[in-house]
């Protein structure tokens, strides 16, 4: 009997220890330790793009956690995400015109919803709605802005399309900026190889604000910095007529291949330089380095 009692007690202690360990793991080492306690109220906000925001992600004001994301769903029939935020009752005094923004903590961190207070006198209530939201910024877009050296054209007044043919577009990608005097005036919408002329046709959409560009302007593919992304630069000409929708830019300068440049250095500008510059560029002028209109058609 006494022996049985000892193992019964020991088994009981084992079970208690196991559950104590589980409670410790669940409450001390997991996100429960961070999650809010007590009453909360729910407000919803709509975002055009929530990026990698997850349920139970924190909601912060001035970096302090005030609640968490309760649910994320797609607004029926629209391409916007409906995010409902569960906010601690303690923080009831959030102005109704506050702005909700999706931020990333650090470069690689998780995403959270940041709330910036507005100036309204009335406060958000349970079931309320945050009307002003800023969606997540895709990293590519931000990097593109840095490397492109300026913001993309806002294209509010509509755009018109212009084509240009290049013998070599290098690494030009769809979405690359089109710039004039370093200012973004549009973007590349299409890069295609022409099956007949065997060159690349680049379609650019340019903001309607910039409709005074002479139709004999030249288009060149430049690289921003040494390792930056490539963009199309428009160099204005002198013609009195302006570019119109569907026009073609005749004067073009292709992307400069780094290999070609280095090749030219190494052979110190001798006649073989023109042969080295053969990246599809069958320009009879030969010495392409001094000719801005290389690849002219």
């Amino acid at each position, binding site marked *: 009997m006494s022996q049985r009692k000892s193992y019964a007690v020991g088994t009981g202690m084992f079970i208690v220890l196991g559950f104590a360990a*589980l409670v410790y793991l669940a409450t001390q080492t997991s996100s429960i330790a*961070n999650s809010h306690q007590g009453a909360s109220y729910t407000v919803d906000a709509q975002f055009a793009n929530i990026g990698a925001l997850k349920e139970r992600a924190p909601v912060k004001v001035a970096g302090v956690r005030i609640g968490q994301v309760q649910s994320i769903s797609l607004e029926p029939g629209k391409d916007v995400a409906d995010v409902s935020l569960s906010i601690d009752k303690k923080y009831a005094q959030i102005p109704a015109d506050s702005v909700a923004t999706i931020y990333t903590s650090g470069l690689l961190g998780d995403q959270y919803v940041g709330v910036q207070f507005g100036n309204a006198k009335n406060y958000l209530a349970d079931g309320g709605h945050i009307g002003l939201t800023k969606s997540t910024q895709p990293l590519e877009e931000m990097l593109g802005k840095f490397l492109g050296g300026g913001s993309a054209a806002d294209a509010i007044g509509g755009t018109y399309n212009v084509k240009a043919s290049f013998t070599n577009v290098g690494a030009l990608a769809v979405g690359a900026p089109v710039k004039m005097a370093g200012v973004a005036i549009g973007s590349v919408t299409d890069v295609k190889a022409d099956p007949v002329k065997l060159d690349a046709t680049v379609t650019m959409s340019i903001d309607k604000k910039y409709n005074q560009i002479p139709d004999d302007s030249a288009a060149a593919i430049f690289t921003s910095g040494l390792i930056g992304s490539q963009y199309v630069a428009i160099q204005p000409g002198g013609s009195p007529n302006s570019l119109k929708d569907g026009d073609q830019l005749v004067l073009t300068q292709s992307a400069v291949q780094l290999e070609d440049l280095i090749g030219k250095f190494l052979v110190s500008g001798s006649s073989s330089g023109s042969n080295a510059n053969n990246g599809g560029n069958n320009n009879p002028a030969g010495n392409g380095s001094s000719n801005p209109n290389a690849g002219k058609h």
Partner: protein
Amino acid sequence: MSAQVHRENVVLQSLGQIGSCGLFLLRVLAAVPRSLRHVRETVRQLWFVGAMSLTIIMTCGLFVGMVLGLQLYHVLAIFGGTSASGSVVALSIYRELGPVVTALLFAGRAGTSITAEIGLMRATDQIAAMEMMAVDPIAYVVAPRFLAGLIAMPLLCCVFCAMGIFGGHLVGVSWLGVDNGTFWSNMTSTVDVYQDIINGVIWKSVGFGAVCSLIAVFQGYTTAPTSEGVAYATTRTVVASSIAILALDFILTAFLM
């Protein structure tokens, strides 16, 4: 049985083993309600496979946590991310090492002794004697051990994980100088209680507990009634359990993630 015949039939034999193991599981599950009359026997087995395994589980958990803390510190130091060592230690213990190492230790510590005990009962005709006395050996001998393994494994795994976190903290914070606050706050912000603790620790170890104890009782119950047969059965328990744990680990991870 000659070696030749044995080799030819090895595939069929393995399939037969898996099949009869599955049928045996059904018999055990059917006997579980009847075995609740012998609840004292289940408690005694729980003492034996659970409480008596605590020493090895706690020691191993501590060392696994310590070695993780040490290894991850040096890798993370390359990227200047030693403050993340808390979350990486916790995640690797919860999601993989805790359940798997606990189950492997359990198969070696408790599974073998269950097999040997039941196998010796079979070899010394105790099981036949029970049948003669109209005591169902499945309900009295097998089901309590199966239940005990099923209950003990998640509890042992929780203890293992807690010791692992403690070991990681000991090495990371006390010896290598990771900041105590960032260690814990990084851990609490990355570990998700449903994803990592309920799915990663609890459900996985329940699955491992079921598989390990089923293999142990099955090998013991179906052993050849000789001393050689018991030896083979014990070896097969360890081999089959280890393979089953690692294979099931992949499947459960894929489903629970």
